[in-house]
């Protein structure tokens, strides 16, 4: 009976998908044919002149017709222009602009090499009217940062961190001091699709989230999209963060590394097979054992929790390779493996606990070029995140293991036909969750948790995206993703009677569906370009998210547990509307944009009690509240991309609210990450060939939190009586960081950089959390309770030395 139902569901799914695709194809394919006249195609590839690496997202702009495009992930571009003379410019942050004049009377193919700015001495002050990508680009709500920019900015303890730098851009908020978890336009930390070479990263944090798991030398660039997300991405409601790794140099072997206060790293890269391929190998390790004990001691400022001995370290390794098999085929590999190990104990109390966690990722990417008009990208990947928490005290033992593992395949074809660009394909991911495997023992008695459950789910999507111009000013990027999620067997459901006794286990065989969801997700961006330097864009997107993060605290922790949608846990659905205005100021090198957005998220989940509670009770229903959230706001952004001084200023005014039936009597209340104002200023200054400096200034309104209103006495203990959830505000967060780098060139092939960084330069004590400390002896009538704000990072100077040869 159940299988019949499943078959019917699949039939319906296939029927629905085909119907939707047919409609979109009819609409999108044929409409532009009615509009175009006699035009020719310019196509080509853009590469880095020094390393021959392909460059994606390079802006190509025709000054004559005001049309433009950007290069795709393979460095290819294609633009359809009317016959006649065209002045076309190629520009990309950190590279010298190239202008060419082309007379078009037939389809042509060109190859462009761009010079990096840093190697062209004397070219650093070029006038910067060339940077047009945000006006021309079919994307909105997007931002890209290159490795060069990353390395120049100040960092905590000398470890540049791509994800933390994204938190300085509009609409992206840091979760808490130094934390990797971040919120994009009111969405939770689990709503960001973080892709490292097209592979999902489940937990991007080392050291309880204070450091990114990404070795900064390996990251070529990082970008974020917050609205109008293309249909090829799905599964997370709020953003797509793409990180592309550096795969080594084609010409010679190079060694890069750095020695810092808390960690050192080294990487080796170069060519193989006579330059047909390139590779890179990198490793990083901390010696943080020396530092973490004082940190933990202050972090957990409760004497009862004081630890006598703690050991902490993390390490990670990266490997990457790229190989050109034929003139049309390129295969690349990238892998990551990293671990954090943390042990603490109190000998006096016979307490010992340890927490180990880490990610493994591996990706194989194949690009096949059919011809110059199209290519086929296929990506096979594996990603795994796991943690293992062990705690013991005298006779008691508790162990909690959790993991999520994905096997994915994504394959898509990109075709260009005239000015139209089509991307279509599919994505399939088999998730294997072990939400919680618990061992607990009290003396010689083992607690009976039943058999732990492994949850399997197949998530997939079929997508279609098309970009086309309706006129020289109006262009549309539209698409549809049809996503589905099937929670299937093998699965062992533990059945308990009303006395909580385990009576039976219900077994669902492999492939049997326990819950099935399907969602059409339309995406649309409309761009109206009024002139060369100005455009207005509007976008709508719907995204379904099928996996949830059960968090236990305000900070993102390694012990947050990923769980799939089930018949009890419905998928989250997010809808977002946004409108933006984009403007370039040629000659001055400035770009400006502003965006207004409204986002609604249904089926948001709130886990009422901690992870352990979630883990212990078989059914999570009574611990989970389902409600909705909404966020709206306006973002302003001014960036200077070229010249001796570069950087950006961003301001976000926003509100994020939630509504749950059983929280605050069902009234709308502020989400914990509702922050009214957010300002960041990033400034990079090149003083000379050797010296450059940078500064970052951040101001964020305090986040909402729950406070006790009163207190009372139970059995001689003072306990708190809490007010409404999130009805209080933390003090505002602000901080300034500065960095100074000195480039040392000793020999031709040997260069090194000495970086001095100061975090929190004016030593602002930003509250990380507030706790209530009771002291004294109530029975002696002297008792004090006070709120105490704990701050993590005071002014922290650091120095690191990085080298390359």
């Amino acid at each position: 009976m159940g299988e019949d139902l499943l078959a019917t569901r699949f039939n319906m799914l296939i029927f629905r998908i085909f119907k939707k695709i047919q409609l979109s194809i009819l609409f999108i394919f044929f409409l532009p044919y009615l509009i175009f006249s006699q035009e020719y195609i310019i196509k080509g590839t853009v590469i880095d002149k020094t390393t021959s690496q392909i460059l994606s997202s390079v802006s190509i702009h025709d000054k004559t017709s005001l049309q433009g495009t950007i290069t795709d992930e393979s460095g290819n571009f294609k633009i359809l222009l009317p016959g006649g003379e065209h002045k076309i410019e190629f520009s990309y942050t950190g590279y010298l602009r190239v202008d060419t004049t082309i007379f078009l009377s037939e389809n042509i193919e060109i190859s462009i090499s761009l010079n990096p700015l840093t190697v062209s001495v004397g070219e650093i002050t070029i006038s910067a009217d060339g940077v047009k990508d945000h006006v021309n680009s079919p994307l909105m709500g997007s931002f890209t940062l290159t490795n060069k920019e990353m390395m120049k900015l100040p960092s905590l303890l000398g470890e540049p961190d791509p994800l933390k730098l994204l938190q300085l851009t509009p609409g992206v908020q840091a979760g808490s001091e130094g934390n990797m978890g971040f919120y994009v336009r009111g969405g939770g930390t689990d709503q960001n699709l973080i892709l490292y070479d097209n592979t999902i990263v489940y937990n991007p944090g080392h050291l309880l989230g204070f450091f990114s798991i990404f070795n900064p030398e390996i990251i070529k660039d990082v970008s974020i999209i917050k609205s109008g997300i293309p249909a090829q991405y799905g599964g997370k409601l709020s953003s797509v963060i793409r990180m592309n790794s550096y795969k080594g140099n084609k010409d010679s072997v190079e060694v890069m590394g750095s020695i810092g206060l808390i960690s050192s790293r080294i990487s080796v890269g170069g060519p193989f097979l006579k330059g047909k391929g390139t590779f890179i190998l990198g490793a990083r390790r901390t010696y943080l054992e020396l530092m973490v004990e004082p940190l933990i001691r202050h972090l957990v400022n409760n004497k009862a929790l004081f630890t006598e001995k703690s050991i902490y370290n993390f390490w990670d390794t990266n490997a990457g390779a790229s190989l050109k098999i034929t003139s049309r085929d390129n295969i690349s590999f990238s892998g990551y493996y990293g671990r954090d190990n943390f042990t603490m104990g109190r000998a006096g109390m016979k307490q010992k606990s340890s927490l180990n966690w880490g990610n493994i990722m591996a990706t194989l990417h194949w690009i096949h070029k059919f011809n110059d008009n199209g290519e086929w990208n296929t990506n096979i990947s594996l990603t795994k995140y796991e943690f293992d928490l062990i705690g013991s005290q005298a006779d008691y033992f508790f162990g909690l293991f959790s993991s999520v593992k994905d096997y994915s395949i994504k394959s898509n074809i990109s075709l260009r036909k005239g000015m139209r660009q089509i991307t279509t394909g599919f994505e399939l991911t088999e998730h294997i969750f072990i939400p919680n495997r618990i061992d607990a023992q009290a003396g010689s008695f083992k607690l009976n948790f039943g058999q732990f459950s492994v949850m399997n789910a197949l998530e997939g999507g079929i997508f279609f995206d098309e970009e086309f111009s309706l006129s020289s000013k109006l262009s549309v990027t539209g698409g549809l993703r049809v996503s589905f999620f099937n929670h299937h067997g093998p699965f062992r459901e533990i059945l308990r009677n009303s006395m909580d006794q385990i009576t039976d286990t219900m077994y669902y065989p492999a492939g049997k569906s326990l819950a099935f969801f399907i969602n059409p997700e339309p995406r649309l961006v409309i761009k109206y370009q009024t002139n060369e330097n100005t455009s207005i864009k509007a976008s709508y997107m719907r995204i379904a998210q099928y996996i949830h993060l059960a968090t236990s605290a305000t900070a993102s922790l390694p012990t947050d547990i990923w769980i799939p949608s089930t018949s009890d846990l419905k998928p989250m659905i997010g809808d977002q509307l946004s409108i933006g205005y984009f403007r370039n100021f040629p000659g001055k090198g400035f770009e400006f944009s502003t965006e207004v957005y409204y986002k609604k998220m249904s089926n948001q989940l709130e886990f009422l009690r901690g992870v352990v509670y979630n883990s212990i009770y078989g059914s999570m229903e009574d611990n989970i509240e389902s409600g909705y959230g909404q966020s709206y706001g306006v973002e302003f952004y001014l960036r200077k991309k070229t010249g001796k001084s570069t950087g950006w200023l961003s301001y976000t005014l926003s509100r994020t609210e939630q509504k749950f039936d059983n929280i605050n009597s069902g009234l709308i209340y502020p989400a914990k990450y509702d922050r009214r104002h957010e300002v960041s200023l990033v400034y990079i200054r090149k003083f000379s060939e050797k010296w450059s400096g940078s500064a970052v200034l951040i101001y964020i309104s305090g986040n909402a939190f729950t406070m006790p209103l009163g207190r009372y006495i139970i059995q001689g203990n003072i306990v708190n009586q809490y007010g409404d959830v999130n009805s209080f505000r933390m003090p505002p967060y602000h901080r300034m960081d500065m960095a100074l780098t000195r480039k040392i060139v000793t020999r031709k092939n040997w260069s090194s950089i000495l970086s001095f960084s100061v975090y929190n330069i004016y030593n602002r004590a930003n509250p990380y959390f507030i706790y209530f400390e009771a002291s004294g002896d109530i029975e002696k009538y002297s008792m004090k309770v006070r709120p105490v704000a704990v701050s993590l990072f005071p002014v922290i100077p650091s120095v690191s030395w990085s080298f390359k040869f």
Partner: protein
Amino acid sequence: MKEILFKLLLVIILSTTTICCNNDLDLNMPEPDDKIVIDGWIENGQFAKVLLTRNSPYFSSIDSASLRAMVLTRAKVTLTVGNESEVLILRRNDDFFPPYIYEGNEIIGDTGKIYKITAEYGGKEAWAYTTIPEEVKLDTIYFKPDPGSDSLGIIYMEFRDPPVKNYYRILSKCFRDDHRFYSSMIMGIDDIFFNGEKFGLSISRSPESFISSKPNKYFKLGDTVSVKFCTIDKAHYEFWNSFQDEVFNVSNPFAASLSSIKSNVQGDGLGIWGGYGVSFYTLIIKE
């Protein structure tokens, strides 16, 4: 040698720079509604006992005067079971805090019955119901020296959990210096993982309060210890379980506490009115 110097340098730099700052905060908060706080219990074979206080605003200073103002000594506390009822009488008892306790004189706790408590004060009224579940006997209870120690240890007990839903609570009193019974560190135990099975538990010395925990958590040779092994009802268990979250997690940033304690008191009240099915043991730990 170089490495040692380098490490030393790091330690110096890091220890001077990563000092966290704890600051007092100034927060403006509204005052809470005035509530009657019931902290009361009834055991099988015993009279009811109720400590009555009121809540206080978070930022009122706490000294002897304000603490005394929290104590309600002029309330009317009524215990009802079936058609029977009695008004409890206030007595001074320095073993408790506050040192005033409302006690029954007539009605004795009996297994299986439902007891209602009502507290009235200044026009406000709070009430709660509880039951006394069937008590469960221990199979064995003994002192278990700590490995590596010849005089310090814990108390270990085993019992067979009846195949019905049970919640437990263990209270102990060490005659060395305890004035009354204190809860074990785990304040409420749910039989979900051992329902109907034989199970063992150990307790260390209970702290008097979680504000000032005793440094020594062990029992030792020569101690005389009384243990109350109690069964409690579900609402009573939920109170202590959430109370435990509150006292353990309130200063832990990595635990989502900040949710209110689940009270079984209705009306203008907070706190707990709990029935205990007690089986009582006294252990003399011989030298």
